[in-house]
């Protein structure tokens, strides 16, 4: 069965739990996260700051920051459980089979090395058989593929000499240095960029994916970016996935009240009259120490029922193939939708 799964799923995360051991108590920052990424598809992971998106990415790479620890779960990369690998095996995977693009291109590049040298470092670690000359040629090829003009000169530039968009291209070139990563994790790759540059970078992701048949886990809080690039979407709230659907379905027929709230608070629908009042989700994200034995969205939810949602955490239910929702009031919501 495992062989079958690894054919379909490049990444398969099951029941991932990461706890933070702080002075005030144990914080279940990731509390049973399940994710699947199929070959060649983009899974969008959406949620607000602090819901655990970036932590999920870091846990997949086994780079959870202190005082956090992976407590439970399995992470399969093409059928191989990463959580049981020894650290030296894991190091071979990072940057090679899984590569990562971070949000802030200024802080994820080293200011004292030229960009060419930094990309070469990846090859030195993972492709030690290559000669210096080969590596340099490869780096120039990568810079060119990432859309950087005159790569032979840019090779010697330092990060500060490049604009934000160019830096992000360098980071992408670095992520692709080893050839063909099975999984690219992109954590808010365009958030720090201007819109016209964002459009260029997103277009580039699409091209790379088409060419390389690569899977992408795209982390963002921007539903516009999701709509443009993702095939399927996982919506995250307070350390767990609350809804999981095909992108078209999610925008058309979202069921979880949190997803509905997110979709309603986005601004840009061309038909919408300017300067109307915006929909907001009441309240704020709950304290992680106070989410046991009830639905995490309970205190902010318009559909909540005290005796159902306030008593136990709802299970993930499959409302139709490929569309999963963690909500006990799905029928009520469907009914509400029919009436509106």
């Amino acid at each position, binding site marked *: 069965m495992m062989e079958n799964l690894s054919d379909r799923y490049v990444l398969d995360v099951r029941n991932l739990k990461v706890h933070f051991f702080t002075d005030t108590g144990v914080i279940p920052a990731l509390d049973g996260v399940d994710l699947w990424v199929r070959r060649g598809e983009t899974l969008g992971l959406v949620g*607000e*700051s602090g819901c655990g998106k970036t932590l999920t990415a870091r846990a997949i790479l086994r780079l959870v920051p202190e005082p956090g620890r992976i407590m439970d779960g399995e992470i399969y990369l093409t059928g191989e459980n990463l959580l049981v690998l020894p650290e030296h095996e894991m190091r071979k995977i990072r940057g090679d089979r899984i590569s990562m693009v971070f949000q802030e291109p200024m802080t994820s590049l080293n200011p004292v090395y030229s960009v060419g040298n930094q990309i070469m470092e990846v090859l030195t670690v993972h492709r030690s058989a290559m000669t210096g000359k080969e590596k340099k040629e490869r780096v120039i090829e990568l810079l060119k593929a990432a859309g950087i*003009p005159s790569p032979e000169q840019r090779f010697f530039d330092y990060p500060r000499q490049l*604009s*934000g*968009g*160019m830096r992000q291209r360098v980071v992408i070139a670095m992520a692709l240095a080893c050839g063909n990563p099975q999984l690219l994790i992109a954590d808010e790759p365009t958030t720090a960029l*201007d*819109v*016209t*540059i*964002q*459009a*260029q970078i*997103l*277009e580039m992701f699409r091209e790379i994916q088409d060419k390389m048949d690569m899977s992408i886990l795209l982390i963002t*809080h*921007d*539903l*516009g*970016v*999701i*709509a*443009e690039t*993702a095939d399927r979407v996982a919506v995250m709230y307070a350390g767990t996935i609350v809804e999981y659907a095909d*992108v*078209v379905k*999610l*925008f058309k027929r979202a069921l979880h009240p949190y997803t509905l*709230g*997110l*979709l309603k*608070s*986005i*601004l*840009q*629908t*061309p038909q919408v009259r*300017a*300067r109307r*009042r*915006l*929909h*907001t*989700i009441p309240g*704020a*994200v709950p304290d992680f120490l106070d989410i046991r034995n009830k639905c995490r969205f309970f205190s902010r939810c318009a559909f909540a029922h005290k005796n159902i949602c306030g008593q136990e955490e709802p299970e993930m239910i499959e409302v139709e193939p490929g569309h999963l929702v963690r909500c006990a009031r799905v029928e009520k919501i469907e009914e509400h939708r029919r009436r509106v």
Partner: protein
Amino acid sequence: MTAQRSAEEILPDDILLDVKNLRKSFPVRKGVFARVRGLVEAVSNISFKVRQGQTLALIGESGSGKTTVARILLRLEEPDGGEVYFQGRNILDIKGRALLDLRRDIQMIFQDPFSSLNPYMTVGQIIGESLRVHKIHSRKEVKNCVQEILEKVGLTQDLYSRYPHEFSGGQRQRIGIGRALTLNPQLIVCDEPVSALDVSVRAQILNLLQDLQETLGLTYIFVGHDLSVIRHVSHEVAVMYMGKIVEMAFASVFFFGPLHPYSEALQSAAPIPDPEARKRRTLLSGDVPNLFSLPPGCRFHTRCPLTKDICSQEEPRLKESSPGHSVACHFRG
């Protein structure tokens, strides 16, 4: 020529702020002796007007000069030339006591709610500081006044003696807004006030700004690059590119059909939250050119899809194409 004019002449009906031919360059220093090796023209001869009780959006990407304009209006930066009339008075030559009074009328809300609040001060001190600086109230009254403000921006009074680190991004931005409101300003310059916030919180803050505008009759200059936000808040828009205004229009007209190719590209680049509307967009090639070596002619011609010979030779002037809609392009308008 302006000195003899009366306020009424300069200020037809409801114009609160009138900016004329504003210019600002920054010297670029290089080498061991930090000699001036050139000038970067951050703001290049721009003019605009803001009506009382309305919102003007200054749109542009990084390096377009929009924040420099904002800082000049607050007298945080001295321009090289131009005039800024606020309620009919040129605010660029006032000094001392009068300048302090002016600061009561023009306030600012900053982009980053994490770095714009002093971590060593309590919320009460942050919001009350300006009242103390301007010696408006006695100590006791300051506390009452701050608590009123807290309520106005949707925070509870018991947060008075908390510190900024105890708050979320949205709450911090509310504190920042509260601080701007204490002195009953006329004009608030909002420098990307929601770009650091999550979508759901963004909506709350935009609603708050809009409510405050309606109840207090505030005028906003809203600096930003996110067109979905701008569409929501603005009455009029001015698009800036490399220190120039390239298009100016009423928001309704602008979002219905922008004229300048750069405005078009901006609109086309903004992702649309509808997966069925995925489109091939007009992508701009390249990056914003280096401000240090401005391209000759039209500053946009290096990235423009419409560019022809004339664009690299002659700089287009901002001209009115229809009432209230101006554009600086050889081929549009």
